[in-house]
């Protein structure tokens, strides 16, 4: 859910406006000050590993976009295989969520996942978010809360937006490979941190050929106090243009046949834009609180890509152009009321969520080099609707025990106007596209409709063992909606059904907080990226089993350390012609570790101004990345660091990405491709990679006017 249902008591990044602070001063010795505290009651966590990362953690290490912030989520590893403006590929708890098919994303109350996106179901591009304006990242692993809906297969990640630096902020950044960025923001110091506006413009020449990119975005959010209620308005706009180097054959790099950052010279890249409006009206009374948040999102994505070179078409090449444009209108609403059934802490919540998507999408084969349109593979208009309702009850039969149980029902409806020309799909001519056995020829002009519903119970048991230590067990059933074009006329919508469970310990004190958990998730069907079709294709049922440890330590105000380690084993539980039950899912890394450490000492005073320093380092590791055919991909270990000195109104900082200049591979795939049309075709699957960025330095000068 995009709402603030998990908002904590006021802190530096949360709502700390006049409601809690601006009371008239009086005689210190005898004045009685009335303090009115407003806010929204905490929702109990839905699992032991439910985590929130605030700005203390977010700002420990350098981040270039809002998408980079995903790395602070325990268990997440991100890669980018098609240029700086394309959505990250996200790995989380044994899932290759690709661009978002298995993770539900919300930013500022608006959904980010794109239903039936032609490149990938649930495509979620977070590059429109400036990292400076994210006040909190909340992750709900699994699907244990009734608020979690479509795409919450591995979990839900929410960004809350806010900017607490008072006054006007201006930043200019310049660094390696021609990277340039301008950031501008303002925040009224008398207002909530949620009230702010920000702008950025960024461009880079890229660390190698075909890696240039640029983006620009603006966001404004304002919170109005309407008596006992609040009104939050959020508006943002974003656009990006980017080149893509594409994949290269690993053997060509390792043999020295091509330089590490070289490309095959095929013109690839894309364009992305997003505009959104969110209006959230919320209220809180003595025994109830509620929100209503309508939203509107307009998205456009264009990708030009070629993963297979000249394999399928030795003359014209295999370049495809994908276009996906969508308009999303929807709302979320919920009402929670305190009840006294077993204790005074009991509550019941009812929620409603509706989302409508109007989607226009196409896929064309175009000539590699001459951009001539050769063939239409997809040409469709889709209307999709997801309406959901849920109930969530929390009771405490004894003081040390909380039981939360709920149910969510989703109804999905689709209307597809499929104008794809009749005939065999391109995948039928590719020798190693595992989709070739699945998809019949697409009839042209057919209109198809489908409906279905999903019923998902959710439950959490939370036991307080000793002060600050909880034992929790959670269970939930969720779903992933299908690609609309895969549906037959009149078909009852087939969902990917997800069952999750988790058991763990959750602890917190003034100095340290964290959790240790074990989890298991099963799917009745899965999706794996197929380079031959450039889309996600269906594979057999699967399961993930693993464990996660995460912690945050803040022993003193100027030191913070936050770390995590997540191990997952992902295997098939059924077989088909390409995969065997018991075998591991390809591409899903087994071990992901992350550590963010920050030092923020006050060094003293200079010229009557406070001199502060900020030093941060982040370690990221991804190990055991299985490839098809029993192989392993390359492990990744990266170090990012930052250092900043701030003399009140002026700050100078240095960000270093990949400080150890590790030679690493961002993405690795195993499939067939042919990049030398004059030579013998290589039909047997081989390793193809995208090369990770080398050491990158960025210098930033910041000015603060208050």
């Amino acid at each position, binding site marked *: 859910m995009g709402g603030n249902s998990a908002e904590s008591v006021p802190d530096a990044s949360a709502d700390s406006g006049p409601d809690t602070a601006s009371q008239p001063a009086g005689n210190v010795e005898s004045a009685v000050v009335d303090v009115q505290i407003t806010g929204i009651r905490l929702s109990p966590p839905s699992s032991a590993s439910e985590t929130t990362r605030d700005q203390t953690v977010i700002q420990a290490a350098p981040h270039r976009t809002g998408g980079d912030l995903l790395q602070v989520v325990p268990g997440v590893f991100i890669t980018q295989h098609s240029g700086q403006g394309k959505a990250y590929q996200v790995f989380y708890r044994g899932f290759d969520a690709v661009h978002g098919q298995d993770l539900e994303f919300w930013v500022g109350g608006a959904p980010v996942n794109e239903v039936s996106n032609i490149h990938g179901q649930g495509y979620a591009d977070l590059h429109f978010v400036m990292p400076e304006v994210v006040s909190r990242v909340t992750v709900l692993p699994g699907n244990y809360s009734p608020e979690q809906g479509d795409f919450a297969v591995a979990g839900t990640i929410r960004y809350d937006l806010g900017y607490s630096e008072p006054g006007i902020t201006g930043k200019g950044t310049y660094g390696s490979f021609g990277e340039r960025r301008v950031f501008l923001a303002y925040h009224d110091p008398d207002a909530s941190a949620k009230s702010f506006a920000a702008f950025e413009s960024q461009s880079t020449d890229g660390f190698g050929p075909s890696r240039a990119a640029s983006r620009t975005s603006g966001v404004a959010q304002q919170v109005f106090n309407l008596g006992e209620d609040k009104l939050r308005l959020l508006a943002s706009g974003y656009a990006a243009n980017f080149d893509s180097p594409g994949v290269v054959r690993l053997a060509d790099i390792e043999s020295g046949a091509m330089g590490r950052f070289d490309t095959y010279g095929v013109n690839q890249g894309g364009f992305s834009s997003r505009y959104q409006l969110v209006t959230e009206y919320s209220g809180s009374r003595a025994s109830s609180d509620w929100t209503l948040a309508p939203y509107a999102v307009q998205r456009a994505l264009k990708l030009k890509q070629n993963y297979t070179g000249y394999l399928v078409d030795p003359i014209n090449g295999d370049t495809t152009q994908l276009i996906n444009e969508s308009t999303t209108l929807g709302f979320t609403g919920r009402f929670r009321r305190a009840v006294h059934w077993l204790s005074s802490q009991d509550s019941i919540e009812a929620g409603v969520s509706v989302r409508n998507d109007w989607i226009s999408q196409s896929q064309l084969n175009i000539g590699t080099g001459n951009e001539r349109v050769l063939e239409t593979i997809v040409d469709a208009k889709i209307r999709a609707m997801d309406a959901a309702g849920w109930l969530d009850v929390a009771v405490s039969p004894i003081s040390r025990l909380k039981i939360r149980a709920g149910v969510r029902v989703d109804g999905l409806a689709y209307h597809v106007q499929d104008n794809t020309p009749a005939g065999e799909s391109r995948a039928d001519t590719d020798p190693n596209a595992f989709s070739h056995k699945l998809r019949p020829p697409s009839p042209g002009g057919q209109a198809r409709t489908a409906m279905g519903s999903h019923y998902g119970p959710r439950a959490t048991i939370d036991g307080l063992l000793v002060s600050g230590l909880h034992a929790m067990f959670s269970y939930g059933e969720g779903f992933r909606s299908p690609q609309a074009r895969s549906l037959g006329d009149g078909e009852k919508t087939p969902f990917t059904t997800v069952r999750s469970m988790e058991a763990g310990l959750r602890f917190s004190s003034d100095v340290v907080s964290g959790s240790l958990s074990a989890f298991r998730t099963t799917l009745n069907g899965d999706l794996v990226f197929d380079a031959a079709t450039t889309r996600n294709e269906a594979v057999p049922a699967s399961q993930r089993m693993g464990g996660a440890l995460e912690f945050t330590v803040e022993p003193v105000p100027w030191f913070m350390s936050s770390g995590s380690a997540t*191990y997952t084993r992902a295997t098939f539980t059924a077989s088909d012609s390409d995969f065997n039950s018991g075998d591991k899912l390809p591409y899903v890394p087994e071990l992901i570790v992350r550590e963010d450490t920050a030092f923020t000492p006050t060094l003293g005073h200079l010229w009557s101004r406070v001199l502060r320093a900020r030093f941060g380092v982040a370690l990221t590791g991804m190990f055991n990345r*299985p490839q098809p*055919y029993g192989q392993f991909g390359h492990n990744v270990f990266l170090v990012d660091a930052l250092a900043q000195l701030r003399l009140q109104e002026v700050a100078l900082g240095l960000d270093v990405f990949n400080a150890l200049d590790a030679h690493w591979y961002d993405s690795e795939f195993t499939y067939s491709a042919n990049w030398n049309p004059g030579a013998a075709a290589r*039909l047997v699957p081989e390793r193809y990679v995208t090369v990770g960025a080398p050491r990158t330095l960025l210098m930033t000068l910041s000015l603060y006017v208050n």
Partner: protein
Amino acid sequence: MSNWSRAGTTVLVGVLVTACSSSDGSSGTTGKTITLKTNVSIQDVLSQPKINAKGWSVVISQGYLSVGPLYYFTGDPVLSRLTPVRRTRQSALAWLGDVLVGSAHAHPGHYIEGAAMGQTLGPTTIDLLGAGIALADGTGVSGLTNSAKFTWQDPATGNLAPLLQGHVVWTQGTATKGDIVIPFIAKADAAEVVDGDQKVEVAGCSFGVAPGQVGVDMDSDGTVTLTLVPSVWFDQVDFSYVAPGTAGTPAVDSNGVVDIAGTLAWEGFVRGVKKGTAYLFSYAK
């Protein structure tokens, strides 16, 4: 990266990889990559007379073939009628039924190759009267393989390439029927052996545990053998079209040898060269 960082990372990675790998070092995903040694053998002793379907006794004195990349697939071959099918996972009873009754398989005229299971990419030129040769090692992935694709390399490569004189197949021999003895040259260019899709290849050849058999589970490193059956090329050649005194017979050269190119005899030769039964693939561990 500093030496200490590199060392520490190496130790950490080593411990983690050891803890998470399977006992054979595999990542645990389906299948595995395999190395395929590749040999070419010639089934016929071309220097010995062989009578073809037209009643001509054919002896080859010289012959060369340009061999291009070879590919192996999951799809059934074009025609495997009356060919015993042996699938590794097939029950013994089912196999016996196939042997006694025979089966017509797959897709006459429309071959669907399926997934690529292996390839040998190094081209060369073969001496058809030689003992066979070893090609460069190929690569593959484990799994059931049923068919293969033979391709010609054009222009030819290898030490014997000049002997092809710019063609992809070149043979010289003698055809005899009764009192008629015809020294001949039969050859073909790449453009003359294209298939229905205008590709310089023969698709849908059989691939099995032995030449002519279909279906074998390539589950480990092994050896692929391409068995050439040049007698298939000459099986339907009616040399009467180039007999001395026959209208339309090309003139013989100074050695009395007739080049059958352009004649109906030659057309029979080209049809034979493009038959999948002349190229039999097999795999053994």
